[in-house]
């Protein structure tokens, strides 16, 4: 059994008004040192899969086909073995 933690964020070239607004709010709170803020999605999947390489290939395919939109988003993920 594997667990996949997936981060999906807007590409650097895509304006993130939500991130900019949060950055502004942080500055108002006194956190002047925040130079950038990007908001994305975090997903956790459990896979009934024994082989780490196959798990990785599957998650990558899931990201490309559904979980992220390659036109606007980038993704990174990490796979860890789960011991029941």
């Amino acid at each position, binding site marked *: 059994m594997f667990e996949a933690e997936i981060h999906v964020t*807007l590409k650097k*070239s*895509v*304006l993130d*008004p*939500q991130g900019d*607004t949060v950055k502004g709010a942080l500055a108002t709170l006194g956190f002047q040192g925040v130079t950038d803020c990007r908001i994305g999605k975090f997903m956790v999947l459990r896979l009934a899969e024994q082989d780490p390489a196959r798990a990785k290939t599957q998650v990558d395919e899931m990201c490309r086909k*559904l*979980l992220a*939109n390659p*036109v*606007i988003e980038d993704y990174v993920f990490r796979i860890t073995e789960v011991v029941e």
Partner: protein
Amino acid sequence: MKWGVLIFPGTWSHQDFAHVFQDVLEVEWGYLWHKETSVAGYDCLILPGGFAHGDYLRCGAIARFSPIMDAVVRFAREGGPVMGSCNGFQILCEAGLLPGALLRNDSLQYRCRWVHIRTERCDTPFTRTVPPGQVLKIPISHGEGRYYASPETLAGLRSNGQIVFRYGTPDGQITDEANPNGSLENIAGICNEGRNVLGLMPHPERASETLLGSEDGRLLFEGLLAGALPR
């Protein structure tokens, strides 16, 4: 000529389209539930606005995998006219029938109001009866309508003449103030390279009668009807 109005779970503009077809234009039409697998017998397909599949994950991301979409893609690839408005535009982008994507409005707020869009191209089946440069008054109603495409895609859209509508002032000036959502180059609607697939954020079905404040949206349906050849 028979119009097919698609319904996904969460679609909300289908009845407005049905009203226009039934009572205003008095043409043949039918609903197509997203679980159906054939669009046989229909001459034009409409993907209405709403929140298909709750807009979960991304707008249109799940609707793209609804069973009917294979038939829609085949219909479009064979040159059949397809129009997606609002959420329908988002679905067409996710399905790869139109380039680019629609992102959260730059204001981060839902926008429900009248806009003016300038007709940039009259060489699509939908806009063929619209005079070039004509400004149409049509409402928008969306939270995620900021059109985005990579610089290369945008260059392709420009050189192929695929930018069909731009947000502007009532007299047709393309300004930042007239852009309701931060769309690149004020883009309100685009077509595919084959010109038979049109996506736009505004709602033409809500502007097809004087009683509702504008008849301009009707032009898009009439354009298609004018070009319909007897089979």
